């Protein structure tokens, strides 16, 4: 019995990361009606950018010492005499890396935003008003361009990138069960949920959100109302790139950096379809459900099954409800 809670919590935490990946796909779809098949590769770029700014640049000979490893006197002093694997030690180790983490994130966000803007400006904007289908095909083409491009730019894969939060082990008791988590996983999940919530709140409650929803419903009428639809498009792509950069950094800390990160986009695309392409709430629930299902399958049947069972569930849901759990009927048209 006890195990189920542990695996459930693990599942929720990875589900939250799926939600963070999904939010980029949903945002672009809502604004532009384009299903971005290349979103996983935008995430891969985010991961490589984080790797660049947090590992590669500090490794250069000209990098200042504090960037490589921040060791003010008080920190060194505190570290002394700590036993191995102590929780405080993990926090201090993370503090040493903090400049790299911060510069890594800022660099990844900025660079990925530029990539998103270039995609929107050069590839999507010229097709606006002509054919959504052509735009979707362009994103399919982008998959090869981006994965090939990444291999040209970054010749090495990386196993280690600094984690976003201290990797302190956390132990607590819930319903008489001993639960064990890594601090960094928990923080990653919290970041993902907060970002997701912030985006949903922005779309629901701000004037900018009105522009997005209006564009989502009726592009040309929104345009004729003074809403700059091209700007809404650009913002949606930037939003996808930014959340993608964070998701990429998180995935990099968990799985290392390699072109195969792009594949995450496809499983998340299935989750997005299950939730209903244009429904933030539906997609959030779907992401958590798949996360938990994955963890449970892992627990009961082992890792080989974990990659399959949840997606069988996704396919079943789509068969029964073609526009997803919470999607609008119109979505069927595309």
């Amino acid at each position: 019995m006890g195990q189920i809670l542990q695996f459930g919590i693990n599942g929720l935490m990875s589900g939250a990361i799926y939600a963070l990946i999904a939010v980029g796909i949903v945002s672009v779809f809502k604004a532009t009606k384009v299903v971005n098949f290349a979103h996983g590769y935008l995430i891969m770029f985010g991961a490589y950018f984080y790797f660049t700014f947090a590992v590669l640049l500090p490794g250069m000979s000209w990098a200042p010492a504090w960037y490589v490893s921040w060791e003010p006197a008080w920190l060194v002093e505190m570290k002394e005499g700590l036993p191995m694997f102590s929780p405080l030690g993990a926090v201090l180790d993370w503090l040493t890396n903090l400049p790299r983490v911060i510069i890594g994130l800022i660099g990844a966000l900025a660079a990925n935003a530029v990539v998103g803007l270039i995609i929107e400006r050069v590839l999507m904007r010229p097709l606006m008003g002509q054919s959504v289908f052509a735009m979707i095909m362009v994103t399919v083409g982008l998959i090869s361009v981006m994965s090939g491009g990444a291999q040209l730019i970054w010749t090495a894969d990386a196993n280690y990138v600094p984690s976003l939060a201290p990797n302190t082990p956390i132990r607590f008791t819930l319903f008489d069960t001993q639960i064990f988590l890594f601090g960094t996983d928990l923080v990653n999940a919290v970041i993902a949920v907060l970002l997701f919530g912030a985006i949903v709140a922005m779309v629901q409650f701000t004037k900018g959100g009105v522009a997005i929803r209006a564009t989502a419903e009726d592009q040309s009428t929104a345009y004729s109302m003074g809403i700059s639809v091209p700007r809404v498009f650009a913002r949606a792509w930037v939003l996808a790139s930014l959340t993608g950069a964070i998701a990429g950094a998180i995935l990099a800390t968990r799985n290392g950096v390699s072109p195969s990160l792009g594949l995450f986009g496809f499983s998340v695309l299935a989750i997005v379809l299950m939730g209903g392409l244009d429904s933030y709430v539906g997609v959030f629930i779907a992401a958590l459900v798949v996360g938990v299902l994955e963890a449970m399958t892992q627990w009961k049947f082992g890792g080989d099954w974990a990659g399959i069972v949840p997606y069988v569930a996704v396919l079943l849901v789509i068969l029964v409800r073609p526009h997803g759990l919470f999607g609008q009927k119109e979505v069927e048209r595309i």
Partner: protein
Amino acid sequence: MLSIENIEVTYHHTVQALRGLSLEVPKGRIVTLLGTNGAGKTTTLKAASNLLRLENGEVGEGRIRFKGEDTRHIAPDMLVKKGLFHVREGRRIFAEMTVEDNLIAASYALDGRPGLKADFDKVYDFFPQLRERRKQIAGYLSGGEQQMLAFGRAMIAQPEMILMDEPSLGLAPKVVEEIFETIRRLNAEDGTTMLVVEQNAGVAFSVADYGYIMESGQIVMEGDVPTLRNDPDIQSFYLGVGGEGNVRQSFRDVKHYKRRKRWLS
């Protein structure tokens, strides 16, 4: 205020919808544009508000000027900010958004126009039903309320000129009257210029100063409303006069019949 000079419009580079259409809407006036289904009325308005490009339509020959400025290269959102608002055919309200959010969407038209603020109360004073339903999803409004909302969005944008596409479509006579009363008031109180597309010539003539009749992408007749009202062809075809069971004068009938057939084709 708006002048359309001899425009040709094609959709998808193949379907020609307008062939050398010209019309003029002077400042402060209400002008109506009448015509049968498929004549090209909506296309004319979309050409003026630059929405054609989004539907793969294109103005080839000719020129459109708003306040003297050639509009060819002005994006739709900029055109609204310059004061030209298009109330589209079928109202096109944002059905999944609340009434209030629909109005907020229109307030984007005021961005970058210093000194102007969205006046929601003005809309709610014109249409008290909308105030009651402020927080409701617009898709659940009745047809008449949706037309009021479409009109309300135009008012929020504080335009100098409104293009209205068939505001009477599918509405009960009483609601139509209310909508046209609003058109008249907005014109009289704010001096808003109007180009009203209609199939219901009766109500259109009740507010308009001048009218154009179009057919297969061209203007076939124009004139002051009193003149048009007395034109026998228009009476029989658009106003339904003379066809109500009375014995018709014979030779005129024949002539009308010919014209009518042309309009219908």
